[in-house]
């Protein structure tokens, strides 16, 4: 803004204003210099303590950030990846998504067992567990390495059978973090249904019991769980996850037994019709 000098003069006086300004500036400069002069006099030890202290605070903040990432962010990332995997599987799935008409035959003979996927990380099916939530559907993926469990949810132990096979179809999933796919594993009640969908059809397993074991108890994966010499006649589904919920000192195991199966052409079981259709829509 340009003002006539005469006008300003009559109010405060330019000289006065400038003088005041200069004084303030000089003061600021002096205090700057004083601050700068003070620094080297702080002493080496004091500087060292200050730097170490700041680094320790930084380490603490980074650790807190890691906890936030592990408990919160990994779930967001994994849920997105798993939803994408489920909708991709559903879109490639051949078969009606309406339930079979009532009164039709429900005996489809012995369940068809699909071939073992060629490569790890192949998504070969989807698991529906209504006890874990009305919309619970998670991909079934080949392998239980970190690469599979950390992104795609429920991994199949390569030593176990495929869904519907005589013996033990065993899968692992995270209790917490990376989607927390088996967070509610302890809430299963005997009689709860676990639906497995593959390209061949739907396998309905019925939950029997939970067991808490030590992490080295690989015998829960045997064709007849925990019985090395028994000859398998039943079709088991075994799910393993960490126990307790935010730790890994033990493992929690959930055993289920195949109740029935129906081919893809017969449509999904009535209990999961809505969810199968929703997945196909994407």
């Amino acid at each position, binding site marked *: 803004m340009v003002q006539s000098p005469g006008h300003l003069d009559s109010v405060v006086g330019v000289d006065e204003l400038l003088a005041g300004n200069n004084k303030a500036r000089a003061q600021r400069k002096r205090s700057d210099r004083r601050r700068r002069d003070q620094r080297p006099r702080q002493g080496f030890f004091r500087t060292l303590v200050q730097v170490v202290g700041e680094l320790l605070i930084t380490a603490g903040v980074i650790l807190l*950030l890691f906890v936030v990432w592990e408990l919160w962010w990994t779930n967001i990332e994994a849920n997105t990846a798993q939803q994408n995997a489920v909708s991709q599987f559903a879109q490639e799935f051949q078969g009606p998504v309406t339930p079979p008409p009532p009164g039709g035959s429900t005996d489809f003979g012995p369940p068809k067992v699909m071939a073992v996927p060629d490569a790890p990380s192949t998504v070969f099916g989807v698991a529906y567990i209504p006890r874990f939530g009305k919309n619970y559907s998670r991909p079934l993926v080949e392998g239980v390495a970190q690469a599979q469990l950390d992104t795609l949810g429920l991994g199949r132990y390569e030593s176990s059978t495929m869904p519907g096979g005589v013996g033990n179809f065993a899968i692992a*999933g995270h209790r917490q973090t990376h989607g927390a796919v088996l967070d509610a594993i302890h809430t299963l009640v005997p009689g709860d249904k676990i639906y497995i969908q593959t390209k061949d059809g739907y396998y309905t397993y019925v939950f029997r019991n939970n067991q808490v074991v030590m992490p*080295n*108890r690989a015998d829960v994966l045997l064709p007849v769980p925990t019985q090395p010499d028994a000859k398998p006649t039943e079709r088991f589904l075994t799910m393993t996850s960490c126990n307790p919920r935010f*730790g890994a000192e033990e493992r929690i195991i959930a055993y289920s037994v195949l109740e029935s199966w129906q081919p893809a052409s017969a449509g999904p079981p009535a209990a999961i019709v809505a969810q199968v259709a929703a997945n196909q829509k994407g």
Partner: protein
Amino acid sequence: MYGWIFRNLPGPLWFRIITSILFIAAAVLVLMQFVFPWLSQFNPLNDSTIGGGV
């Protein structure tokens, strides 16, 4: 240390504040995208497999 860095950033105060926020955001991004996923493999607390994952 952080005080020294802040004092030695170029520009006026508002610019230095924006620069510091950008630096912090970049550090958090690098941690979340690269450091933590790598660190996660050493975390024994989320191993949900049994018998070493057969």
